[in-house]
């Protein structure tokens, strides 16, 4: 993730230790990367929500700052309550690592400005608990507010049972909060930032965030 932002997108990403009580003062966007925080023990993301830095992340999000959560980062955001819903065990009960097609449902800053609605992105997933779930009422709200940003689809962009890799409700791969400044997704855009390794579709997403931060006048 750091490589994608630093070396590919030439933005200056900085690692922040999870025990820090505050984010660096110059923070313009926060990214919670994937990767088995606390070993996924108890429940994915359940322990990381209590990491000291998460209180600062919450304050940052509440103030309108952009927060991106990828995979375990998405799970942490759901556990923290910054995003609605939960990530459940994959329907087939197996961890799954594969490239999937994603249809962009909303193309807007700060996370998808480089995309067009309906565009299909090819980005890998790799998780064991990636089945997005929201209760029917919540789901209705998400759909009505346009909070669903990415859905699993086939190559042509068609969304259906066959293109759902993990049993996510409504094929949801990524959502934002109501305000639109917190975005969580299970696929890993940082694994699709170079033509020769994984392709470059991930840059549509990560690049959008860099654009938004640059437009806001920093970096």
């Amino acid at each position, binding site marked *: 993730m750091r490589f994608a932002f630093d070396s590919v997108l030439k933005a200056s990403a900085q690692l922040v230790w999870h025990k820090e009580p505050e984010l660096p003062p110059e923070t313009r966007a926060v990214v919670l990367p994937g990767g*088995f925080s606390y070993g996924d023990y108890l429940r994915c993301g359940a322990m990381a929500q209590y990491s000291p830095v998460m209180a600062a992340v919450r304050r940052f999000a509440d103030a309108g700052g952009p927060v991106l959560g990828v995979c375990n980062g998405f799970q942490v955001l759901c556990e923290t309550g910054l995003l609605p819903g939960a990530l459940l065990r994959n329907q087939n009960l*197996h*961890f799954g690592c594969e490239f999937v097609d994603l249809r962009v449902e909303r193309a807007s800053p700060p996370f998808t400005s480089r995309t067009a609605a309906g565009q299909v992105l090819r980005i890998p997933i790799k998780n064991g608990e990636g089945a997005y779930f929201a209760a029917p009422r919540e789901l209705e709200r998400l759909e009505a507010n346009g909070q669903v940003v990415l859905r699993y689809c086939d190559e042509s962009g068609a969304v259906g049972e066959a293109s759902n890799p993990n049993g996510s409700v409504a094929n949801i791969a990524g959502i934002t909060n109501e305000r639109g400044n917190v975005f969580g997704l299970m696929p890993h855009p940082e694994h699709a*930032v170079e033509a*020769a390794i994984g392709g470059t579709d991930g840059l549509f997403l990560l690049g959008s965030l860099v654009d938004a931060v640059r437009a806001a006048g920093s970096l």
Partner: protein
Amino acid sequence: MSEYREPVVDLALAREHGLTDEEYARIVEILGRTPSFPELGIFSVMWSEHCSYKSSKKYLKKLPTQGAHVLHGPGENAGVVDIGDGLAAVFKMESHNHPSFIAPVQGAATGVGGILRDVFTMGARPVANLDSLRFGPLDQPLHQYLLAGVVEGVGSYGNAVGVATVGGETQFHPCYAGNILVNAFNLGIIETDKIFLARASGVGNPVIYVGSKTGRDGIHGASLLASAEFDAESEAKLPTVQVGDPFTEKCLIEACLELMATDAVVGIQDMGAAGLTCSSFEMASLSGTGIALDLDAVPQRETGMIPYELLLSESQERMLLVAQAGREEEVAEIFRRWDLDVAVVGRVTDDGRMRIQWKGETVVDIPVDPVAKSSPELDRPVARPADLGERQKLDHASIAPEEDFEAALRELLGSPNLCSKEWIYRQYDQLVQGDSAIRPGGDAALIRVRGRDGEPTAKGLAMAVDCNPRWCWLDPHVGAMAAVAEAARNVACTGARPLALTNCLNFGNPERPEIMWEFAEATRGISDAARALETPVVSGNVSFYNETSGRAIYPTPTIAVVGLLENWQRHAVSHFPQSGLSIVLFGESREELGGSEWLAQRRGLEAGLPPAVDLAHEKRLHGLLAAGVARELIRSAHDVSDGGLAVALAECAFTGPERVGATVRLPGTIRPDALLFGESTGRVIATTSDANALIELAKQSGVPAERIGETGGARLSVGPVEGDSWLDVEVASLCECWRDAIPRRLGES
């Protein structure tokens, strides 16, 4: 000595510990007295087959271990091979067969954890895993359960620590029905001036324990479990299997690498088999020093642990290190930051003795070297198996010719050994760290190498693991040569130059002369091939006693070869990349059906001599592949192995992102089934847009090469130069029987 009472040590107790009468007599002689209970435990693990290599030493000594690129060979935690520009590849493979049979998820997981520690102990950042797995027949519920558990275990550990699993192999055979094989390989990258070894030098330096607390798990895990064969009581050995904690391992990796960036560390060793005992003895022995340990300082998970347990526990995710005196607080600070236990448990001494205190009393006081260095070396009796001649007997004329080539191809492609392993590798994170240039499913995996600054370099490392146990059973010398040749060929198919190898030598009970003969022959084969191909053996592991109730596995010396590509972006893939390319076959197809998949599956016969291995040809082939890929003459290259030419062509057609058919016309006068399904070694299917130039290059390299067809269309058509096709099938339908063969058998598709 407090309230606990030790058992009386005598010959009977020594025997219970797996020691022979002669070994016990030697212990008494070394000490000049009867050993204490913990001392007996120490000798029994240090002299166990697993830790001492007593049966295999004689043969391992003969393996070629030196080479221009070899920085460290066997004897260290892992082999280290120079890859230029101040960087080196660190790698090793290790077995976790017995634990995985008893508790598949934890057994496999801790196998991965152990091999990771061997690599990062040296200061390397682990970057890639491979796994070589062997099970009994996939239609047996037990083996479906073992497969699912082992794959989950490998995945759960590798995924969570953030190391990509980029390749491997999986086979099924009745000989593994009572004894599965789980061989885990890891490769790390290191800076050549920052290599750490297992040393305990500098009298007065602190001996520091870091990582997880010590519990009662895994006592005698490696030493007893891996040093005796299975019987009906094996499930009672469950408590000897360790439990893995990948999150702690991840923290341990980061903390150790952070510490190693300072100059506070003198030496470091992971606590693997036989835990605290093995690590402290090895470090002291390699440095010619002694160690004084205080067991009360060891972080403990349970109360009431006795010295015997503390010394022999195989609790996972623990390391022992020796630091510069006066730097203790600096070391502790790093580990505390990562929420890991850290404690000074002893000091380096100059008297060559291991002196261990517990509750103010000396419970162990023994000289280091006689335990670590003078462990027994056996020259076990060797005898050619009486039925070997019978196994090797095969009259080609008596084998009924194949009457339906398409049916044969479909059957082979859909068989558990040759089918797609996607169901397995889908469960592994193949991408983490972002450097997987060729992911699982190709001939070899290819990873991009990062440099000192964490930025990508131009270099790539290719790696593959292989063995054909049936061939090894028919002729262990040829079979082992073939395993080295195939792994190296797979690596060479990417365009990489094979550099070195590591191995896992899985065999039956060494106390049986015919098993020892197999071992001797196989190691001779590895030596011959490693010398000829200039791929020295830089690390490895021996796993004996792979048998249940007297029935041994086929000899299975798995070989992993690592190769270097100077420019990773210029590599060949294994599938047909596009239509309109010429297909060129390197090597010769001979009438060799002995030991083939076709013979086993279509004729129910495991017999004959395995195909001949021409090592000089293999070496020339490596040169040709490297040159062809570097000049961009070779677009794809795929090794012809299990299932022969027909299976290899089908794989070329459907394993790429797009399916690409082909029309192939094979010259030759041998019987068509041998041409299609025979497994002559030293062959590669390459594609090129300039067949003449490639064939000319092959000629210069001294490698037989022929243009056999071209890519294109949706069908795979294979036939003789003149006459009707033997096969003309839609690629998509071939792919179908290959792709879902495992989930279909597991009832998951």
